[in-house]
Every structure is written in C-alpha cells, then in structure tokens.
C-alpha cells in the first residue's frame, strides 16, 4: 500500500520515529485488535488505537450508556445516553479516523462464541470489569495463542500485564481461580477516579502498539502496578507457573467455562 498525502500528514509524528517509520505505520494500519469492553479502559484504549490508525478494531460490549459512566468512559457523551456502548465507541473512533473500521459486537462474551470471535484478530485487549470475563478471555487467548493485554482498575490503583501464550505467564499463573462471588467488590461496585482509566488504558494501548511494531519490551512475565494516590509505579515479576491450570504443558483446563456472573449485581 502507498500512503495518501492525508495519511502522511496524519501519521507524520509516528513516521519520523526511527522505531516506527513508514513500515511500522503500515503494520499499524493492517493490524486487527479486539477490545473487550467499551467502558473505562476500553474507551481510552480504543481512542488511542484509532488515533494511531489501527485498521480494524472490534469492540465487545452488551451494555448501554448510563449517566454514571460518563465520569470516565470518554468515548461516550451525554447525547448518547441509552445507546449501546459498542455503537457509541464505533461512532467516536470512526469519526476520529476514517482509516479505521470498527466492528461493534453487542454481546456478552461467552464460551460458545469467544473462540470464533478472537480468531479474526491479532491481539486482544481486556478492559472488562468483571472476573468471569477476565478468566474467560485469558483461557481463550491461551488456547488460541493470541497475545492479550490485560488491564484492571480499582479505586486509585491499576495494573497492566501482557500475556504472550507459549512465551510468558498468563492470568491464571498469577491468580489461579477467580475469587468467590461476593468476596471482592467488582469495579462496578467500587469507586474509581476517572482519570485512572486514562492512565491504565493508555498503558494498554502502548503495549498493543509495541506488539504490533515488534519493538520494545512488552510486560511479558511482568505486572505493572500504578498507585495514583502515591504517584508510584511498581513492576513485579510474574514467572510462568509450571503447574498453571491452563497454560502449563499438562493443563487441567482444556475447555472453556462460563463463571457465574454474580459479581456485578449492584448497578448505579
């Protein structure tokens, strides 16, 4: 492909970087990224990936926009209350950059459709707000061998990690099983300072771009933690667990399962 004059202008700040250049920008334009969730994390991830020119973005979300979302979910707006979040994200991202095609998938991920969905994408981003989805996405990506950039937020803290199946750790190497329902607050129950979503979502977008470009060191076997109150970042090593139930050589989990979605009963 040849760049149009418009693309040369739009992506000039990428192209002048030695690590990107025209070749890197073409990789970005040809990349296909699936974002799970069009909420606090999915919005900034998708926003930056669309701005960067990621050619195909899939966004999965079965929720509609509520007023309480707008304090942090920056792809949506007040006029779109009640609209499906996936449709709103598509409108926002495609308006930002006509080079981007966004597929709005207005379903809740489940074990019967996730493998078929992720096979069309190069990289998966988890911006979900609940444990059932987080574990389902992890297991599916491990089984499909898809790189997964996972992010999570709670109150003033956030974390990011990059899972490269076959090379590094997975989410279950870190936390083998989801916590029992009722024990932990979900992000929907817990408060969050909106700008934290921007920090963590931007870190996830950066991980995705590094994977697309094949440059830099992604957070493989590492968990990056950010504490907004303390203004501190901490990186901890996450070794691959040789007995991991899903990514070890003899996995116990060989079929996907849907966990009970009882973490997020409370809505506001």
């Amino acid at each position, binding site marked *: 492909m040849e*760049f149009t004059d418009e693309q*040369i*202008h739009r992506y*000039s*700040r990428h*192209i*002048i970087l*030695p690590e990107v*250049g*025209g070749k890197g920008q073409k990789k970005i334009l040809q990349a296909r990224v699936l974002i799970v969730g069009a909420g606090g994390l999915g919005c900034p991830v998708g926003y930056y990936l669309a701005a960067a020119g990621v050619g195909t973005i899939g966004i999965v979300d079965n929720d509609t926009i509520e007023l309480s979302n707008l304090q942090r979910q920056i792809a949506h707006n007040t006029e779109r209350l009640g609209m499906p979040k996936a449709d709103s994200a598509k409108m926002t991202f495609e308006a930002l950059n006509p080079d981007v095609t966004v597929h709005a998938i207005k379903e809740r991920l489940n074990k019967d459709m996730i493998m078929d969905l992720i096979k069309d994408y190069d990289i998966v981003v988890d911006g979900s707000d609940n444990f059932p989805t987080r574990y389902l996405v992890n297991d599916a990506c491990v089984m499909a061998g898809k790189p997964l950039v996972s992010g999570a937020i709670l109150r003033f803290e956030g974390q990011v990690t990059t899972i490269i199946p076959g090379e590094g750790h997975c989410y279950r190497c870190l936390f083998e099983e989801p916590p029992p329902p009722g024990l932990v607050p979900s992000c929907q129950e817990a408060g969050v300072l909106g700008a934290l979503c921007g920090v963590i979502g931007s870190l996830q977008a950066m991980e995705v771009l590094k994977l697309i470009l094949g440059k830099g060191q992604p957070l493989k076997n590492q968990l990056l933690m950010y504490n907004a109150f303390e203004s501190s970042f901490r990186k901890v090593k996450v070794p691959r667990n040789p007995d991991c139930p899903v990514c070890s050589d003899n996995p116990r989990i060989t079929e996907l399962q849907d966990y009970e979605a009882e973490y997020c009963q409370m809505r506001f």
Partner: protein
Amino acid sequence: MEEIKPDKSINIKGLICPYTFVKSKLAIEEMEVGQVLEIILDYPEASRSIPKSMEDHGHKVLKVEKINDTDWVILVRKERE
C-alpha cells in the same frame, strides 16, 4: 571528485518541516542499503534539519549544496534498514 549518481530523486519544494523529513524518510525506507537518495528542497530550515536527522537515523550524508537562490540539493546514502 567523481559525480555521485543518485538511485532515486525526490522534489519536496513547497513542503515545510516536519513533512520535508517525513517524505524523505519514506523515500529512503523504500530503497536498498547502499543506494543514494537525492532530495531537492527549498525550505531553509530543512537544509539543516534533514542532514542531521538522516545521520541520527544512521545514514550517510554525502552532499548538502545550495544550487540557486531558493533551492538546496542533499544526497544521502542509505546505510541501514
């Protein structure tokens, strides 16, 4: 001195920074290591910034010459991918 014959030539007159460099970089990316790119430009600042940026990227600047009242010609040899 022997005249150096460029393998490719681009005319970026009328462009200003950073597009002068963006166009030059895209052109040299498409070439083979060892080949020479000729850049003709008329933006004064770029006559200094392009040679510097090309060297930062590891390429060899062979010539920077003002050829008339408004224009410069720059020759760069591609040294690395």
